[in-house]
């Protein structure tokens, strides 16, 4: 038996490299469990939102002749809905990350925060890819005039992702402790689809409703996304700072709770 000497420590590596490796391993594992199991797999990540957009377009084209922006109903709904979808899809996945991955903690290298980050990265990539394919496809297919403002588009995607991370980071702790809150949150979020500026533009609703809707950060996100495609649309009400603050508050609280409750969750 030999005692340890500095030469026998080839395993020491930077914390950052180890973190990156753990995240990569978790992402590969998530992909295999989530998308590798069912036939179709990844195709559903695109089919699911595409079907919603198709349904909305069909229904509203029966009611109105033209959408509020441009000429194509599918493109109008896609630019709003996909921004919302990035938020919804990412926050759903992140919210369940701790509950689903508790068994993984028997590998001390994997922390709860790693499982949160891995799901966040994978789902942002998946949802953004779906958004790119759907909106890109609709631009080509509809022939509608668009002027891409990549600054606005990236800001919209970034804010949607940040909101999802904030809400998800807090909920992943709360969901692990309270099934009641998990149910209540699902119920509370059901009308979100209607009040997030996907169907109607913020500018077209009455002033009284505007005063309330303004506080929903997703209204800012969907408007910003549309401004990135429609050159005539200039949503002056949008405040990226408000959305960031709305996201950072639960993110800070969630990360804090993960740290404080770490010891307790490990022993569950």
């Amino acid at each position, binding site marked *: 038996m030999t005692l340890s000497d500095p030469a026998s420590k080839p395993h020491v590596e930077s914390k950052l490299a180890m973190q990156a490796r753990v995240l990569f391993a978790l992402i*590969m594992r998530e992909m295999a469990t989530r998308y590798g199991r069912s036939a179709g797999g990844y195709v559903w990540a695109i089919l699911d939102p595409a079907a919603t957009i198709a349904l909305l377009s069909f229904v509203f084209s029966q009611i109105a002749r033209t959408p509020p922006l441009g000429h194509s109903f599918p493109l109008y709904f896609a630019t709003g809905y996909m921004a919302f979808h990035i938020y919804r899809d990412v926050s759903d996945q992140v919210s369940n990350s701790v509950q689903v991955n508790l068994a993984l903690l*028997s590998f*001390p290298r*994997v922390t709860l925060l790693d499982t949160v980050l891995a799901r966040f990265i994978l789902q942002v990539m998946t949802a953004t890819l779906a958004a790119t394919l759907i909106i890109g496809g609709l631009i080509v297919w509809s022939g509608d005039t668009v002027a891409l403002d990549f600054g606005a588009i990236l800001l919209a995607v970034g804010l949607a992702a940040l909101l999802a991370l904030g809400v998800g980071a807090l909920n992943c702790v709360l969901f692990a402790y309270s099934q009641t809150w998990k149910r209540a949150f699902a119920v509370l979020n059901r009308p979100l689809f209607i009040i997030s500026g996907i169907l109607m533009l913020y500018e077209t609703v009455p002033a009284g409703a505007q005063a309330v809707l303004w506080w929903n950060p997703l209204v800012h996100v969907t408007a910003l996304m549309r401004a990135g495609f429609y050159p005539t649309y200039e949503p002056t009400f949008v405040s990226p700072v408000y959305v960031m603050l709305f996201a950072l508050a639960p993110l800070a609280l969630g990360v804090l709770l993960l740290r404080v409750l770490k010891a307790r969750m*490990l022993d569950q």
Partner: protein
Amino acid sequence: MIRLDHVTKSFMADGVRKYVMRDASLTLPRGRSVGLLGRNGSGKSTLLRMIAGASEPDEGVIIRESRISWPLGFGGGFHAALTGAQNACFVARIYGVDTDDMLERVREFAELGPFLRMRVSTYSSGMRARLAFAVSMAVDFDVYLVDEITAVGDSAFKAKCAAAFKAKAEKADIIMVSHAPSVIRQYCDAGVVLENGRLDYYDNVEKALAAHEANMKRPVKA
């Protein structure tokens, strides 16, 4: 080297706080394989999990200056919906082992045949244990933490595990929980005895076993 510095760990059971250890300090030197001895429920497995980092002390710190395995002996972290090979690759990635290397070594050691490419949910408990053990042996640790490894597998597999540990003994140490003194003697040269929240290190495994035997003859202190 692994050092516990004024570590306190407790659990709540039926509204009563039960201390596993109270302000305990301990140094486990490199080059010694250590058996953890104590009564049922005295906290041997908890100590092992704390050394691994899979559980945290209430107070105090644990300093690890070696590459330490996760607590072996169960496939706790394996995903039932993934194949044995996929699970092995996951562990290879988090510990920085080449995935092809890992699969080659697992194929050889676990003898799962075509099951390696099937979901872990289809495995028997013996097969799971073989996979868990093969995966951990494919990663080179300085210290292997083993929890009741003898409870699983047939005698042929046990012999294989013993041979694998023997081959590693040149470079690696073992910290082990087992109820069987014969197993402790086989693998360990030192021992730690847990009793009433205290940790006592004995550099000689026979002395540790004797101290443990003496404790067992005394009634449990309330």
